């Protein structure tokens, strides 16, 4: 698939800058005018989502959109480019930002959180960086936004400003900056010097497969530097920052640590596999099988760990690590359908997992409960929340008619395309494990009696919390029925 029409358009930049404009408004409104402040967040989010969605028809017609910002090095520009996978990711992130903003209003006010201005400010910055990653056209641009995201999420992770937050923040930055500065940077600089025989653009379209000119050892080293350099993907053994980052308020866990940040990681890895190495080179490489093995191991091990977690958010975090493994696995399969499935899984899992996190947060706001074992009988008190949880769980498990099914299906098809039966077996086992660690939560809530049966003080969380999670649960259905559009967007035949 090589799109022929290139359209110069400023819209990607607008999507990038909308949060910055919102940021000015947020800081100006401040703690004294919370309604105005949150209005600015809404405006920024809506503008961003509208701009991103307005690009969809162009991409569907087979064009790509480019915008040149400035020249970083002689041959390497800061170039934004919108193509199918990037746009799909951007759509998911920006649309879910609107939902999260609404949710955050309910959550933060419900808990009387402090420093909400700081919270909304850095949230906006993170989304700007996420758009940047989604729209990057070369390795250097993507690296810029990747680092921006690491730094701008730090104040969100350490929001509570206490000892636990310090530990979480240290793990978070330690992993992310160590990998990006010590593994990624040499790999990038290597590509800069040698990749393009003097042209040095590191471009995702022009330079696909040029890594193939290197010696075999170099290729393998580069592959592993990139795979582990993007530690946001949560690939084991560089995964423990994610459970650590769960000290953040739930909206952060929901949008950033289920959608934006981790998906930026896997999206970068997808870019590396699909647009730097390219499917052809990758499938002929000798070290490539190992990335599939690592991804599979991540999927299985994290699912097993998730089984043993009683803290709901931690259980979801380990589940996320496993699901991210799917994306890496799909990208590493290096067939069209496998890599397409990987991109789809970014969207499908995002919608399902954000629902689950929203539910966990809503339960916490309404009851103060954090542990799975405390949820008995809660389904009758909070039917909407727990119903949505059920739908989200089923989508993550991958049952039709929910979005999660489509992406798993395509990853499995991709694996079959290259006769990797064992990948399908891994997918099946993992789905089974998903059932084991997600469904008991809903089952406990609906069918187990609790001692607080007659406690009438427990009811649904504020409507700002409940509405977004109902909407994202419905989104899981919609993604299933609209999957043909998504498939067309990333260039796969439905």
């Amino acid at each position, binding site marked *: 698939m090589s799109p022929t029409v290139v359209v110069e358009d400023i819209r990607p930049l607008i999507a990038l800058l909308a949060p910055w404009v919102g940021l000015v408004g947020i800081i100006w409104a401040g703690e004294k005018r919370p309604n105005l402040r949150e209005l600015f967040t809404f405006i920024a989010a809506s503008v961003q989502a509208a701009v991103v969605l307005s690009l969809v028809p162009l991409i569907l017609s087979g064009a790509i959109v480019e915008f040149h910002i*400035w*020249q*970083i*090095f*002689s041959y390497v520009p800061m170039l934004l480019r919108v193509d199918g996978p990037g746009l799909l990711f951007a759509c998911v992130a920006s649309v879910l930002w609107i939902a999260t903003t609404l949710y955050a209003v309910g959550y933060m006010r419900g808990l*009387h*959180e*402090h*420093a909400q201005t700081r919270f909304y400010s850095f949230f906006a910055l993170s989304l700007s960086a996420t758009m940047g990653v989604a729209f990057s056209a070369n390795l250097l641009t993507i*690296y*810029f936004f990747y*680092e*921006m995201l690491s*730094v701008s999420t*730090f*104040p969100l992770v*350490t929001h*509570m*400003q*206490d*000892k636990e*937050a*310090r530990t979480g*923040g*240290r793990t978070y*930055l330690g992993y992310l*900056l*160590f990998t990006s*500065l*010590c593994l990624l*940077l*040499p790999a990038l*600089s*290597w590509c*800069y*010097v*040698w990749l393009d*025989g*003097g042209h040095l653009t590191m471009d995702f379209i022009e330079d696909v497969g040029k890594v193939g000119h290197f010696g075999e050892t170099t290729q393998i080293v580069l592959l592993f530097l990139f795979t582990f350099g993007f530690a946001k993907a949560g690939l084991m053994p560089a995964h423990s920052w994610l459970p650590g980052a769960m000290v953040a308020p739930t909206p952060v866990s929901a949008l950033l640590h289920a959608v934006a940040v981790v998906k930026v990681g896997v999206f970068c890895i997808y870019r590396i596999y699909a647009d730097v190495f390219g499917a052809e080179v990758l499938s002929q490489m000798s070290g490539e099988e190992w990335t599939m093995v690592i991804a599979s191991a991540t999927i299985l091990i994290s699912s097993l760990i998730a089984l043993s977690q009683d803290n709901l958010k931690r259980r979801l975090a380990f589940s996320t690590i496993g699901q991210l493994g799917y994306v890496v696995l799909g990208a590493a399969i290096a067939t069209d359908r496998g890599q397409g499935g990987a991109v789809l899984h970014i969207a499908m899992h995002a919608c399902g997992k954000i629902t689950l996190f929203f539910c966990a947060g809503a339960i916490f706001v309404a009851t103060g409960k954090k542990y799975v074992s405390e949820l008995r009988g809660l389904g009758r008190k909070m039917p909407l929340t727990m119903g949505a949880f059920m739908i989200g769980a089923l989508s993550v498990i991958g049952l039709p008619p929910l979005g999660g099914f489509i992406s798993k299906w395509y990853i499995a098809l991709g694996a079959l395309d290259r006769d990797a039966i064992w990948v399908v077996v891994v997918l099946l086992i993992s789905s089974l494990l998903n059932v084991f660690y997600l469904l008991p939560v809903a089952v406990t809530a609906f069918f187990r009696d609790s001692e607080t049966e007659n406690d009438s003080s427990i009811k649904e969380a504020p409507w700002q919390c409940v509405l977004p999670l109902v909407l994202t649960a419905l989104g899981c259905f919609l993604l299933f029925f609209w999957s043909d559009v998504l498939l067309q967007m990333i260039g796969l035949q439905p």
Partner: protein
Amino acid sequence: MSDSIVWIVLFPLIGAVACALLGSFSKRICYPVSVLSMVLSVWASIQTLMQAIDSSDHQISYILGGWSLDFFPRGVGIEFRADLLGALITLVVTGVGLIVSMYSKVPVQRQTPGKEPMYYALFLLQIVGLAGITLTGDAFNLYVLIEVAALTGYGLIALGSNRAAAATFTYVILGTIGASLYLLGVGYLYLKTGTLNMVGIHEAIQANELHSSPTMQVAFILVLLGILIKMAFFPFHAWLPKSYCHAPTTTSCLLAPLVTKVMIYVMIRMVLSVFGVEFSFESTWWGEILPWLVVVAIVCAAIMALAQREIKSMLAYLIVAEVGYMVGGVWIYNYFGLIGAIFHVISDACMTLCLFLGAGIILEKCRTTHFDGLRGLFAKMPLTMIGFFIGGFSIIGLPPTCGFFSKWYLITGGMVSERWEYMVTLMFSTMVMVVLFFRLIERIHLAVDESGKNLGKGHGDLGLSKEQTRFDEAPLSMLIPLLLAASIVIIVGIYNQEVVDQIEIFLRDYKLPTGVHYQ
């Protein structure tokens, strides 16, 4: 104005004299005089840089006093010569001088009351010395200017707190040893080549094939050793942290970004232009040893920086580590390494300036720069802290600050020369800097003390009184220079290619290995 190259030095010199003379009548006149002379000097250096870029051979030369250089070997006249490297670094020197002189109003009044005329006279003479070093084309004149810079530096540091005198003494001893070694080396050079003009020396080495002459080897070692001491390369660094910690705020803001960086410039100048690439890298064994010394230097300095509990001394050790970066960039001997070293001279000057200006404001407002006094500072001085953090991010090497790009070229250089030890060291020190700065950010942002005890009542309560966290920004005369420096850090980063283009034109003549064979 075709003579702008001389005016770079003359404006501050006139300003210094004016401060010393007029200052006895009115102390208040010194501040505007020094700012004005720095503005003019910056203007002259921009002119010079533009002329150098526009001229056909990318350099301009000015012969002081009209002494002829015509007879061989190139005469006794003193020549000012600005090629692209010299002009760029001169602009950095005068630019930093301007920003610091703008910043100096409040701290000088507080820390050296009554001595403003002398202080500003020394301050401007310091700039004369440093800018002169970057402009002169004469090896002996370079020594004189190094001494001008050093002597004024001693004076500027000694005006600080009680312990500044002792610190200055260490500096005097080591500085004198360094300068004497350099002078001795120049003596040998003169003996062998019969000239003191840098171009003349280089031509004589080429013409007489002095590459294997033992005298030249000795001269090279002496010159290099002298410079390494003056730039606070690791085992010779003892003078630097002490003197920068105890010096008055303005002094450390001026000296920290410039002195070591200008000495790096001298090293590059000596290695490339005077002794020549062939002699420096291929006829001597320094190229084998120095990268390993650099590894030791960076690691030790980084560990020492980790051990500090006070911002200024932490920054001082960071400078020692950064010196290692640049020396390494030169001695891994390739094109990218040298671009990295030269660009790092510029970017390190910008970011060190930014950090020291920030530390100066913290000292001014809180009366301490100890780590324990930092909690709640973001609420109190958000703009200052943003400026300070931008400098910190640049030291770490996060894009798009200029520190990222210099580190990028240094890493690339290490890779091209396959100096893996240098690369690993860079990574190590990068991680140390991440720890250093995020430890500061933690202290400012979180309500946790060293042992991990929560100090506040949770929910963002830092355990401080309302007064301690009330918005109370630094005076504008200090804040504006800081924000200016912070924006320069980012602008130089974004437009790094413009700077690197000039460095590439400069390096083109030296035929350095690029390590890459493009098809």
